[in-house]
Structures are given as C-alpha cells and as structure tokens.
C-alpha cells in the first residue's frame, strides 16, 4: 500500500520539477505580494504548507466519499472552494484559541490563503492524477514546501534588490516580475529529472 518510491517521486517532483509557483504558475498573487520581507515570506510559507496539507486530505475525502459516490463530479470546483474556505476559517479559530503565538506569527496571511489558487489547484491535481490517500497527503505537503521554497528564494533576492542600483523605470514591481520570470526559467532546468 505504502509505496515509498512513488512518494519520493511525488515529493521531489512537486518541489523541483513541477514547482507550484515557478512551473505551474499557481499562487502568483501571494508570491508577488508577500515576498518583500524574508520573515513574512517564511510565515506565509508555513501557513500555506499547513493549509495545503489539510485541504488536500479533506478534499480527497469529499471527492471519493461524496462526489464520486453520488456521481456528481461536476460539482467539484464549488464543493472544493466550500471546503477550503471553511477549513481556513476553522483553522484560524483553532490556532487563535490554542496557539496565540503561531496566530500572531501567521497574522493576516492565514485568511489570505482562502483566495490562494494554489490550494484549489493542488486539490484538483490530486484528483486528476488519481492519487490514493497517502499520496494525496504527501503531494499536498510537498506542494506546500515547493511554494515555501519559491517564496523564500524570491524574498531573499528581493531583499537584496532593495539595495541594488536599479534604473528608475525598473524599480519595484517591474524588476520583481523579471526576477520571477528568470527564476521560473532557472527551474526549467529541473524538468526531465523524473
């Protein structure tokens, strides 16, 4: 049942080859929005990893035990959005009550994840690739890590760009977009690894 080989392929594949941001272009909004500071990038990465893992598992359960059973697969998108939105709200409440420190560390990023397309994207990819429960769990977690990796790398570069001598017309978002594109091209180097 537990195929270690396949899990390693999924994890490496999700983090490097099919990086959620740099290869699949999902979750670009927080990628550009929350990457000005390394510390907040780490917070956002943690929050997304957490929610992605949970959301993957729960949407898988909804898909298999509800949508497929009653043959209403066409409701996938709306059902998943419902699940993700409520999940984020629920997780926020639990963290607020039981771990105020973590709640403060994640701050506004937690509710922001509700509208993060990476979460919905990964949930749908899990189903499209017909992963089992364990594979879904690892795919969700690995995609969270891949988002974190991309975000942290990007934030590190952007912090350095702050001090760089950039032509006026290129300052701010233009140079950030160019950087993101170059990073994406760099990650193309991983394709064919698996």
């Amino acid at each position: 049942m537990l195929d270690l080989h396949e899990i390693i392929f999924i994890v490496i594949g999700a983090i490097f080859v099919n990086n959620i941001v740099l290869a699949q272009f999902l979750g670009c909004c927080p990628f550009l929005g929350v990457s000005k500071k390394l510390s907040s990038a780490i917070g956002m990465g943690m929050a997304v990893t957490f929610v992605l893992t949970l959301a993957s598992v729960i949407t898988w359960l909804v898909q298999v035990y509800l949508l497929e059973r009653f043959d209403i697969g066409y409701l996938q998108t709306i059902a998943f959005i419902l699940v993700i939105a409520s999940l984020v709200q629920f997780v926020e409440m639990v963290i607020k009550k039981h771990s105020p420190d973590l709640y403060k560390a994640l701050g506004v990023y937690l509710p922001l994840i509700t509208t993060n397309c990476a979460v919905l994207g990964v949930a749908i990819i899990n189903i499209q690739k017909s992963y089992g429960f364990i594979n879904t769990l690892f795919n969700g977690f690995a995609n969270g890590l891949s988002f974190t990796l991309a975000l942290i790398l990007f934030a590190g570069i952007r912090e350095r760009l702050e001090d760089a001598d950039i032509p006026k017309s290129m300052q701010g978002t233009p140079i950030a977009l160019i950087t993101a594109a170059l990073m994406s091209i760099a990650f193309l180097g991983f394709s064919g690894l698996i």
Partner: protein
Amino acid sequence: MIYAIICLAALGAIFGIVLGIADKKFKVEADPRIEEIVNVLPGANCGSCGFPGCSGYAEAIVAGNAPLNACTPGKDEVRQKIAAIMGEEAGEAQEAKVAQLMCNGGKDRAVLQYEYEGVDDCHVAATMFKSPKACGYGCIGLGSCVKVCPFGAIKMGADQLPEVDYNLCTGCGVCVEHCPQHVLKLVGVSKLVHVRCSNKEKGKDAKAVCEVACIKCKLCEKNCPEGAIAVVGDAGNSIAVIDYDKCTSCGICVTKCPTNALEIILPINAAQKMEQPVNPNAPHACQKCGLCQ
C-alpha cells in the same frame, strides 16, 4: 440533480454548523478597550514603546504590562486619553525627546579616506572600511535616517549632516536604531548643549581626521560647575559624555572646548538669533561668550 442539491446543501450545512460551534467554543474574549486604545494611538507603529506596533502596546496596556506613558510620539495628549480609557491616573509626563546628532563632521570638516560613489545608503557605505570618512565613528551623511523617519522630521543640511525638525520629531527613535554608526541619540528637547563628536580615538588621531573632534583634553570636565560632563573611558577609547540629568545647558563647556566639539544646538525652527541668553533659569546663565550670535 436531486443528489447534487442534497449533497451541496448538506456540505454547506455541515460546514456552517461546525464553524458556528467552533466560533462559540474557540471564542477568544477580546477586551474592547484594546481597540479603543489602538484608535487613540498615533498609528505609526514606530516601536519606540518597546512593543510590536501600536496594537501590541495597546494589548500590553490592557494586560497591565505596560506603563501608560510609553508612547513618546503621542506625547501628553495620548497619555491622557489612554488614562481616561483605562480609568487610571495618568502617569508622570515624560519630557519630550528628539533625535540629536552626535557628530559635527560635515562636509569640509571631516577628512575623507576615499571617494564613495556607491549606493546611496549609509549601511552599504559603512561596510567599506567603516565609513568613507577617515573618522570611523562619525556620521556617514548619506541620509539613511532621512529615509527611515516615519514622520519626515529629518532633512539633510547644507553640510551634508542630517538636521532634525523639533516640531516634527516625536522622539520615536527609529532613526537611532537604524543609524549604522550610532551617532543619533534621543535627548530631552530642552537640552541645548551636546557633545557633537563620537570619535573615541586619542586626541591627536581624532584631530587628524576631523576639525571638530573631541580631543579628550578634559577642559570641559574641569570647568563644568555641575560636574555634568566628563571624559569617560580608557585612553584610546574615551569620549566626553554629558550627564543630561545634571546638565543645565549653561554653555560654559562650549566656550572652553578648544575644537568646538561641544556645541549649543538650537532648534532649527527657533529664532536663529538668540536675544535671550541660553536658558536664563540656569544657575550659571549667560556667559556672554557671543557664541549664540
């Protein structure tokens, strides 16, 4: 069709109920006073109170962990309002503080050790042989404090040293933290005499790199009637330091200082011509030194 309606309705209902229950069960009682205090605070999130932002300070006040008078930018007004919200006596008013530059080695006064043409930022310049100026202690003069000031109170003067506008400066200390050379200090707004040098080298070495350096001659220490100024530290690592609690701003040390490292700094926006003697209430008032003219 009927399954679709039932399933989606059931999903919605289940999540709704779960969230409803969770909301009750995981409710965190927030004190309404926190929000009231946040609304009263200046909202600059400068951090001079020592708490993470204005909301952090508000929470600490309500939790009883913070004094009511810790918000320097808010001055007396905010302190009174917070006291009203908390229903407590307002604490002692603190004297308003402003950022003061402890260096006078501006253009043409300090010797340059190399021509700096890099990024316009003191932190970057400070990584290259301490400073473009031969004095490794002084103000670099690229204006990082100007950029970081949340209240726009600092501007670069003609001699390429920052000037602080006393009306706008709230004493939040953001620039003090930010300055790579640590030449900015928070000092009470009524204090007029300052050691405008931070160079701790021996007198001869200090003088070699800057016209207005403190040469550790101790003339100020010997002549101060209040014992408020002293050269502190070992040879080669010493500097004149004013004890602001004792200093009456009489200005005697300023007249004695052979290198003009001590200066009377008047608020930029105060009348440039001082007709009144410096601090007429000081026991050793105007020395008729003529400096103020």
